[in-house]
């Protein structure tokens, strides 16, 4: 079921958290809401599930305006950031609760609970109470409770934050599989860009109550609209060089680095610019050489990560296949891949 937020605004008293946000999640699509802490992700989610009433705008499920409908009438499953399990109920009772309030027969509830708890691997914990579970187990109970009623819309507020790396990987694909199979429209709130990129059809990046860009993960990575988006996606993160426009090229004053810019980039002569270079685009094989000293080196197993202090003082990051010939303090002359460099104006807007 399609979700449409139309000019949605939310403020708490005098605190404006979200103003005039508009976006759409298509039927069966999974959208990631990605953004730094406090940017309004949970607030948006709460408005979609009906806990918070919007202070302005409309929310549509399909063609139905649900802006003023209570949560009970929306058929949504939510995994809350704090799990919000019922401490006095066992795991089975927690999961079965949405069915119980619907008036489903106890035997049927039992069957559904068994099925869904197998799906999230907590079949052996059904008799326990939430206080007797680990954080990750609680999260899976919350997920099971959100899924059990076969909701039209699934809202996940950082559902994997507490899982260990292996389980997180497993749950990622599990959630994605369930979402695909059931065709539920889902919104996933997360801090974790890897999670967002790997699980979702599209990503919406939020900053201070606004959506900066909505796009598929690949588009977002290669074509970020702002420096903020470019900085948010990618691990290890992008690095920025500061310079000015000079004769159709990006130039760092007092250094020999000069990156010619495509004609499409229009900026007045002398304007301040930022050049975003992703670590994979600063390697020995680039076309604009930028000599400097290695100040940091780290191996990540398959790849090595280096920070290079350029002669002018700026910093660039490089990621390369494992090699053993470069150490901290060594002088290197690696090069920027100018075709893939991203140019932003001083306010961070992409040029």
């Amino acid at each position, binding site marked *: 079921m399609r979700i449409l937020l139309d000019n949605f605004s939310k403020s708490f008293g005098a605190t404006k958290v979200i103003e005039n946000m508009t976006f759409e999640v298509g039927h069966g699509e999974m959208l990631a809401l990605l953004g730094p802490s406090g940017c309004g992700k949970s607030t948006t989610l709460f408005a979609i599930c009906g806990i918070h009433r919007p202070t302005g705008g409309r929310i549509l499920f399909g063609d139905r305006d649900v802006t003023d409908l209570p949560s*009970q009438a929306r058929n949504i499953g939510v995994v809350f950031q*704090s799990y919000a399990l019922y401490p006095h109920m066992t795991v089975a009772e927690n999961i079965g*609760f949405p069915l119980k309030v619907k008036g489903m027969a106890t035997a049927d509830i039992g069957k559904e609970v068994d099925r869904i708890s197998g799906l999230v691997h907590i079949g052996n914990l059904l008799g326990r109470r939430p206080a007797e579970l680990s954080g990750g187990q609680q999260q899976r109970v919350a997920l099971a409770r959100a899924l059990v009623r076969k909701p039209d819309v699934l809202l996940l507020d950082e559902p994997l934050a507490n899982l260990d790396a292996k389980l997180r990987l497993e749950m990622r694909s599990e959630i994605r599989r369930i979402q695909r199979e059931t065709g539920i429209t889902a919104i996933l709130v997360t801090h974790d860009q890897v999670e967002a990129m790997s699980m979702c059809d599209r990503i919406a990046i939020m900053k201070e109550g606004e959506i900066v860009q909505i796009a598929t993960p690949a588009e977002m990575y290669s074509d970020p609209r702002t420096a903020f988006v470019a900085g948010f996606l990618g691990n290890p993160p992008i690095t920025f060089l500061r310079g000015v426009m000079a004769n159709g090229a990006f130039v760092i004053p007092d250094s020999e680095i000069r990156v010619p810019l495509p004609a499409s980039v229009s900026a007045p002569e002398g304007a301040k610019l930022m050049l975003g270079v992703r670590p994979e685009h600063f390697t020995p094989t680039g076309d604009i050489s930028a000599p400097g000293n290695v100040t940091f080196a780290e191996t990540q197993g398959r790849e090595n990560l280096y920070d290079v202090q350029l002669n002018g003082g700026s910093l660039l990051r490089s990621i390369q296949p494992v090699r053993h010939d470069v150490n901290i303090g060594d002088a290197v002359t690696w090069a920027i891949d100018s075709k893939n460099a991203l140019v932003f104006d001083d306010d961070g807007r992409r040029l």
Partner: protein
Amino acid sequence: MNTSRMLGLVMIAPAAIMILLFFLMPVVLTGVFSMTNMTTATGISGGAYQIAPHSLNDLKSTMPDIAEQMAQPRYAIDEAGMKAVEGLGLDAGIATELRAKHIGDVFQTRREAERMIKGLDQRPSTPDVKKISEQFNRSVVNSRFSSKEELFSALDTLGFKLTDAQKDSVADVTYTGWNWTTENFSRIASSPDMARVLFNTLLYVALVLVLFNTAYAMLLMIWTHYMPSAPATIFRSIWLLPRITPVVIYVLMWKWLAWDTGFISVLMGKFGYPPKNYMLDNAYNAWVFVVLINGFIGASMGMLVFSSALKAIPKSQFFASEVDGASRWQQIRYIILPQMRWPILFVTCYQTLSLLASFNEILLSTRGGPGKATEVWSLAAYHTALNNYAGNLEYGLGAAMALVLVVIGIVLSLGYLRIFNYGTLVSRPLIED
């Protein structure tokens, strides 16, 4: 003993003394009093021996002869009488002769004594004989003796020769002080009045507890929970008023409401009903008022306890349950009430005990009336021991009634502690050492 333990004992000494003085002593004293037959008549210090008419009555059944004799005056020629005779201003020879011949004699009747006086050599005149005999008139009836010995020596000088067994029963019936006895308890167990009072007490505790202290308090909690917070605070404060108003004034307001010139009477007067005291008009009304008065005072505690327990439930649980599709009623039924188990139990325990022990609201409003319709156990104990119209306060019986209350309280507390299952309440510390 090492010094730290010594220090520990010193530190808890004041607390121990306090506990002893203010917690244990009252109970112990109540226990002691309850095993006596103390009343206003006996006093609470030791008594005296007095051959009162009622004690002679008592004696009649066991020793009819002696009781009969004691009821009559005797004539003992003693020193005190001699002094009085000397003061009569008669011929001095009479007194001298009397003293010489008859001092120490005891005459059973007036006639015998007067015959002896007439027979004196000095020959007193008939009016003088009467005057003289009057000086020796000695009756044991209504005289007080501070000890058994004095009683017996007085009886002895009057010529009552009693066996030891007889002495014992005379001492028994003439003793005006209190005795040790278990009679209070058998009276409590067998008296139909007490059964009635017990029934009243159970009714009172059950009605106030169930209707107000828990159900009504719970209603207030839920009501204020779903209100915006500002009006909720205002309403909570209003519902606290009965609790913080001095009880005398609060009850007085109810009385104003119910008096024959009060609000209800005036209102009903408009419909042609004659004015009356609605509170004391009949037992049914009295009960309604007693329950209402206590209920509105008592409900505030439950409201506070329940409200704060409710506040302790994380908001996210309400959010989750709404999203899960639970209606408001289902939220109350499945989310709120199950998590109110301990608060409810706590309020039930606490309020049962305080309802059992408190009677001031009833005392101030109905005084247990009309008749004894609203007399509850603690009020009955108070009336028996400390305040009644008949004037003879039965401290012993009252103390026994209070003791019964204490025992019921202790038994209930232990029972409640069991239900609470202390082990689960005192859950394992989060930080283990």
